[in-house]
């Protein structure tokens, strides 16, 4: 058999093998999370507020970035009551898979750093039975934690490689948040 003929016979098999290998090489973790939708019912358990008024005041005077050129935005630290730039709000939740709050499936913590006009950047960590998920994004925080939409940015264990978005909305039932996670 000529070399060329040998190659011709092996080539389709090699191509088929390459196609199969590429398909199977999609990480198992991504296969587990892709296209999934999860719903949790989150009941708040603890909350704390870190008021950095002194650090803010000190930062107006002792600032390496020349505050005269770029001052804080107008009304950044005045106006109606609420978190001010640099303050932190921490919210802890228990997570349930049912609206009756009987099946505990994990916990979540939201760590939010305020910037301007009562908006904050929140980092959410979900500790679940088979892994964790992380989300981060902006949240408008008035006097209550009323609801957010945050991009899901990663995860571990069963949720390794998770990405998508979570929507958290208040439920009228039992002071809970309904968290809907959409993974792509």
């Amino acid at each position, binding site marked *: 058999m000529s070399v060329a003929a040998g190659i011709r016979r092996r080539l389709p098999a090699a191509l088929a093998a390459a*196609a199969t290998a590429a398909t199977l090489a999609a990480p198992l973790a991504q296969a587990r999370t892709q296209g999934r939708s999860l719903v949790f019912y989150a009941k708040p358990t603890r909350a704390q507020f870190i008021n950095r008024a002194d650090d803010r005041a000190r930062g107006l005077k002792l600032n390496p*970035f020349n505050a005269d050129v770029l001052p804080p935005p*107008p009304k950044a630290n005045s106006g109606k009551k609420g978190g001010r730039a640099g303050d932190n709000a921490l919210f802890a939740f228990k997570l349930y898979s049912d609206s009756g709050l009987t099946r505990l499936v994990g916990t979540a913590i939201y760590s939010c750093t305020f910037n301007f006009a009562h908006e904050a950047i929140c980092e959410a960590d979900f500790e679940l039975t088979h892994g964790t998920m992380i989300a981060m994004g902006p949240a408008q925080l008035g006097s209550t934690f009323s609801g957010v939409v945050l991009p899901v940015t990663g995860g571990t264990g069963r949720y390794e490689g998770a990405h998508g978005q979570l929507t958290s909305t208040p439920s009228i039932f039992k002071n809970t948040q309904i968290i809907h996670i959409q993974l792509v």
Partner: protein
Amino acid sequence: MLGLACASAAVARAGETGHRTLTVYSVATGLQYINSADDSVRGKVNNPLNSTENRLAPKGSSGKGPFAGDIALYALTLYDDATLKRRAGSAVYTCYFNYNRHALCQAYYKLKAGSTLVASGPIDFNKSGFTIVVTGGTTKYLGVRGEAKVAPAPRNAQKIEFELIG
């Protein structure tokens, strides 16, 4: 044979789902600096670290800063192009300083039609440009990842070039 060759080329590109770019221009409209000097001093004396870790505390804090533990919060307006005439949205950077004028910054960009991009990464405040990691998005940018390259632009602006996957 041609069909198989084309299938092979398609397979070789498997995994590249939707590569797109987006360019906006940002102008900083406000800065709030959080000076954590007292927390740093208190932390040197009152902390739960072991002796080995305590020996690794930074030696002194001379100069203007920024110093580890300080925070800089920037508010920005986004524009569609370098003329800065058409608004594209707004952004906020929250930068947590660590050492040698470096910070780990978290950013969000609120764009038209309710879409948001989020990004994180180290920024060296000794330099004028930086690249941070796009870690996610919502709505039109649901599930994206990628990079945001930021460089100085005319009129006190910064050009932000997003390279997005997904």
